[in-house]
């Protein structure tokens, strides 16, 4: 393997992996702490991406600036969704297992709702725009500058999120709640606020990833579900409920996906599913699990 090819596959894998890591960390927050296996996770990516597209094409707003516009709005929407829908479901459920089942189904409903509202709003056509697509040469491998920027931003957001999780007081509360909700409550974590904020934070990460994706790929209201599936796989790879593991899982999946795409373009999705099913059968606790 020549150096150029190696760089090509690695950097391409890192770009995908960085985005997958953000998306997976978001889902991990929603499932690991709020206990909602949110199948509509990808719809928040789609909302972030299409909103960024509209802001750019209609108002000429720089996609990197729309990060700070779309992010908070989607954060607020998700917080509201959690505190109306899921909070209510959680109270009505007898056990956490029952809540996981019903919230999974409710999030399917949410998927249909968000996707079809977006469909009414943006229409079914494929959209896309070019932003900063100057070519960058990395040891012979050529990339659009927007992809490198997306990678840098994804790594930046991921690192920021990591330090927030490990060092801030709130981040420690989140990790405590991910380990054991009841004990976390006993040591003074405000669970009810925490759950809503974690769900919203998960959607925020999805929306940010969506904004970063928007300049790279084709955009449609149906683009969300594949990302949801990738996120679920990355989360299982890192261990359900292990937020830091899911960041790593995202990167691994991105690199594997890019490698398989290079070997045989049609097989990447099949490879994801095959890895996923094997993992579930052999080591359902994930690569970081005990």
């Amino acid at each position, binding site marked *: 393997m020549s150096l150029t090819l190696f760089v090509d596959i690695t950097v391409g894998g890192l770009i995908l992996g960085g985005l997958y890591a953000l998306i997976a960390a978001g889902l991990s927050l929603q499932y690991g702490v709020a206990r909602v*296996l949110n199948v509509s996770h990808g719809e928040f990516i789609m909302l972030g991406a299409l909103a960024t597209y509209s802001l750019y094409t209609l108002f000429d707003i720089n996609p990197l600036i729309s990060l700070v516009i779309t992010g908070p709005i989607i954060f607020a929407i998700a917080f509201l969704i959690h505190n109306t829908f899921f909070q209510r479901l959680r109270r009505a459920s007898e056990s956490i297992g029952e809540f996981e089942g019903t919230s999974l189904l409710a999030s399917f*409903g949410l998927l249909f709702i968000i996707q*079809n509202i977006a469909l009414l709003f943006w229409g079914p056509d494929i959209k896309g725009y070019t932003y900063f697509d100057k070519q960058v040469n990395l040891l012979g491998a050529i990339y659009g500058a927007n992809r490198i920027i997306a990678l840098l931003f994804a790594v930046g957001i991921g690192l920021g999120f990591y330090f927030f999780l490990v060092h801030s007081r709130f981040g420690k509360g989140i990790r405590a709640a991910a380990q054991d909700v009841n004990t976390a409550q006993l040591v003074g974590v405000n669970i009810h606020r925490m759950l809503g904020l974690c769900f919203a934070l998960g959607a925020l990460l999805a929306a940010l990833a969506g904004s970063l994706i928007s300049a790279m790929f084709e955009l449609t209201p149906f683009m969300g579900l594949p990302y949801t599936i990738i996120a679920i796989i990355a989360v299982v790879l890192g261990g359900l409920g292990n937020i830091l593991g899911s960041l790593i899982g995202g990167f691994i999946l991105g690199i594997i996906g890019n490698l398989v795409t290079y070997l045989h373009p049609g097989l990447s999705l099949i490879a994801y599913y095959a890895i996923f099913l094997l993992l579930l059968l052999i080591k359902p606790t994930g690569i970081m699990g005990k």
Partner: protein
Amino acid sequence: MISARSLFFSRSARTFLPILILVLLATAPVYASLYTLISLSNVFMYIVLTVSWAVFSGPSRYISLASAAFFGIGIYVSAILGNVLPFPVVVFIGGLLSFLVALLVGLSSLRLRGMYFTIFTFGLSELIRHSVHWWEVNMTGTVGRWVVAVDQTIVYYAMLIIVMMTVLVAYTISRSRLGFALRGIGESEDAADHMGVSVNALKIITFAISTFFMGTAGAVMATRWTYIDPSIAFNPLFSFMPVLMAIFGGIAQIVGQIIGATALTVLADILLTKFPYYYMLSYGVILVAVILFLPGGLMALQAPMKNWYERSFVK
């Protein structure tokens, strides 16, 4: 005097009403239009998917999202063998193959509990869909296939027979030791295990039996569509709809499942023709609303309705 009460709530009505409906359905090709027959076959398809999904997932609380996989297997059997073998044999093979695949899947996956099982089944049916798509594109050269068409009346009767078989088997299982054991697993798998229920064997066999009917339904319905491809045959909606329909009607009773499947299929028909753009949107709203406000499904309304009726009309 025949009051509404004796019509709907009395014991004799409970035996009489199903027979009446069955006779009406069995003679439908004589007086009903072709359009009605086609709509009814569609309703039957969803009844089979819903009731057979609920045979396993209802009492055991293992939510399977693999119905599309087994339904799709039946469809592909029909597409491949349709012009080689007689129709009833094709339908039976469709069911049998689903049954065998489900045995394999069950053997490998039913150790997984709760959420892991659900995402595994979803991943499995997506893996099958993408693999078949890849195979068709790279090996066969075309994505789609043609299915030999069968007379609509035959499709109608075949579906009616499958519905009756599914309901009969579902009813028998729910009343048998198997059904009680499954409910035990749903309540607490560890407790059931300790009481001597062979948990894994029962889960696998019920799961496989339930998929037999999905496969046969797929094999029959494929002849109606004449053209199929992986995204039609393994459409994830075939996995979600049965769940939605069972919950909408009332997952605990077979009658509820049938009512749920019928109501939502008819509703889908109306929405698709009148408001095509709001079709999936309204489905989402219904799903969320039912889960939030009517966890017992339509069947949960039965008791309050009966109460209301007795208070206001029966002196």
